[in-house]
C-alpha cells in the first residue's frame, strides 16, 4: 500500500522526464483506461434508460440472482399449471405478482448475496436495485410472451393474465419509488395497485379472477406500464451540466 505520495513506484526512475509532468497523475489516467472494462451494449442501454450507471451495473450484473430467478420461474410456472388444471381457478396466476416480487425480495439478502452487507451501505438503495431488476425481468418476460402470443394463441393466457399485470405492478412500484425517493413507498404502491386491480375486477365482473383473465385489462396494463416508465425517466433525468 502507498500513502498516495508515490503511486508509480519505480516508474519515476525509468528515464528522464520534464520536471513539470505529474507522473502519478499520468499513470492513474492510463491505468484507469487500461484496467477498465468497457460496458456492453445491454449496460449502455440500461444506463441511458435508467440515467443511473449504478443501477445499470447492478441490473446487468445480478451476480447472485440468476440461478434463483431461473429456479423460481420454473417452480412457479409448474405450480401454476398444476393448480390451475387441478382446480380450474388460476390462484397462482392471481397471486403471481406478489409471489414473484416476494421471491425476488427473498433472493436478495444476507447469506444469498455475498456482498449484501456492503450493498446495504450504498447510496443507490438495494430496494431500488431490486425493483429495477424485477421490472427488467418481468418486462423481458412480458415482451417474450407478447411475441409468443402473436405466433401462438396458447401463450396468450399466461402473457396477458400473468406477465403483463406483473410488469404493470412493478412499473407502478418503480415509478412511485422514483418520484417519492422511497423504495418502501414504491413497494406499498405496487401492492396496493394490484389489490385495487383485483377488487376492480371483482366489482365489474363479480369475480376476483377478472383482473388476470379479462382481455379488457390488457391495454390499460400496458398503457400504465408505459406511463410509469415515462415517470421514472422524468424523475431520474440528469440535469444539464451535471458531471
Amino acid at each position: 500500500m502507498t500513502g498516495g505520495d508515490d503511486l508509480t513506484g519505480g516508474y519515476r526512475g525509468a528515464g528522464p522526464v520534464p520536471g513539470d509532468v505529474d507522473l502519478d497523475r499520468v499513470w492513474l489516467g492510463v491505468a484507469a483506461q487500461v484496467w477498465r472494462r468497457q460496458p456492453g451494449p445491454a449496460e449502455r442501454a440500461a444506463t441511458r434508460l435508467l440515467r443511473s450507471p449504478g443501477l445499470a451495473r447492478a441490473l446487468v450484473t445480478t451476480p447472485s440472482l440468476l440461478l434463483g430467478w431461473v429456479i423460481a420461474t420454473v417452480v412457479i410456472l409448474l405450480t401454476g399449471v398444476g393448480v390451475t388444471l387441478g382446480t380450474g381457478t388460476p390462484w397462482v396466476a392471481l397471486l403471481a405478482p406478489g409471489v414473484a416480487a416476494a421471491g425476488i425480495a427473498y433472493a436478495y439478502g444476507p447469506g444469498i448475496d455475498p456482498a449484501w452487507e456492503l450493498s446495504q451501505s450504498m447510496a443507490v438503495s438495494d430496494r431500488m436495485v431490486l425493483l429495477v431488476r424485477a421490472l427488467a425481468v418481468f418486462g423481458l418476460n412480458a415482451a417474450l410472451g407478447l411475441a409468443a402470443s402473436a405466433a401462438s394463441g396458447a401463450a396468450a393466457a399466461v402473457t396477458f393474465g400473468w406477465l403483463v399485470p406483473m410488469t404493470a405492478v412493478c412499473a407502478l412500484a418503480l415509478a412511485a419509488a422514483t418520484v417519492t425517493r422511497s423504495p418502501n413507498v414504491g413497494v406499498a404502491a405496487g401492492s396496493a395497485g394490484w389489490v385495487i386491480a383485483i377488487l376492480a375486477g371483482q366489482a365489474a365482473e363479480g369475480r376476483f379472477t377478472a383482473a388476470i383473465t379479462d382481455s379488457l385489462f390488457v391495454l390499460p396494463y400496458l398503457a400504465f406500464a408505459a406511463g410509469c416508465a415515462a415517470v421514472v425517466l422524468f424523475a431520474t433525468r440528469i440535469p444539464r451540466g451535471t458531471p
Partner: protein
Amino acid sequence: MNVELTGLTRKFGRTQAVAGVTLEAGPGVFGLLGPNGAGKTSLLRMMATVLPPTSGTLRLLGRDPGGYGPRREIRRRLGYLPQTLGYYPGFTVYDFVEYFALLKDMPPGQVPRAVATAIEQVGLGDKARVKLRTLSGGMLRRAGIAQAIVNRPELLLLDEPTAGLDPEQRVAFRALLREFGQRATVVVSTHLVEDVAAACSEVSLMDSGRLVFHGTPGELIARGEGHGVGDAPLERGYSAVLAAARS
C-alpha cells in the same frame, strides 16, 4: 462533528449488543478497542447505516440517517469495510471497486480515475485485472479497503481492517489511515492495540456494549501504569481499564 451518538442502544432479542453509547468524533483517526463480543461491530454497523439503532439518536455528517434523503447523502460520503467482506468471485479487483463506486452514486466521469487511485493506494495495481477468487486473504482485505476509500469518504468506518495483512502492509495501511484522518473521520474497530498506538489520535474501549474509556492513546497508557497484565504499555492500559470496568 462528523459523528454524534447519544444514548445509542441496539438489542438482538434479549441480548443488548450496544448499551447507551454516547460519543462525538470529528476529523482524525479514532480507534475502537474491545474484546470479542464487546459491541464494536454492532456500533460500527449502526454508523454505517446498515443497522438501525433500537433507541438513542445518531447523527452522521450533520444529518439524521433515519430519513431516506439524508441517509442517501450520508452514504455518498461514507466508506465502510465490514468485518466479513462479501465479494463476487467472478469480479476482477477493478470491477469490484468500480461496482461499489457506481453504487455510491459517484459522478460517472470521475469513477475510472478514482478506482485506479484507490487500487494503487492499497498496492493492488498489479492485480487490477485479476479475479477476486484467485486473491489471497490479505489481498482481498486490501480490495475491500479500496472500495471503502474510492469515494474519498468524509466518514470512513473500518472493521478489523488489518486482519490478514502482513507487517509491511500494515505499516503502509497505517500511513494511509493517518493521511485520511487529516480531513475525514476514520473509525477503526480492532482488537490489535498496536494499530491504535501507531495510527489513532483518539481511542475508545468497549466492554459488554458499554463505552468504558475514551481518551488519547497516551491517556490509556497512563491507566496501565503499575498494572501487570500485558506486554506493551497500551496493552497494560487496555487490561487495567477492562479490569476496572468489570470489578
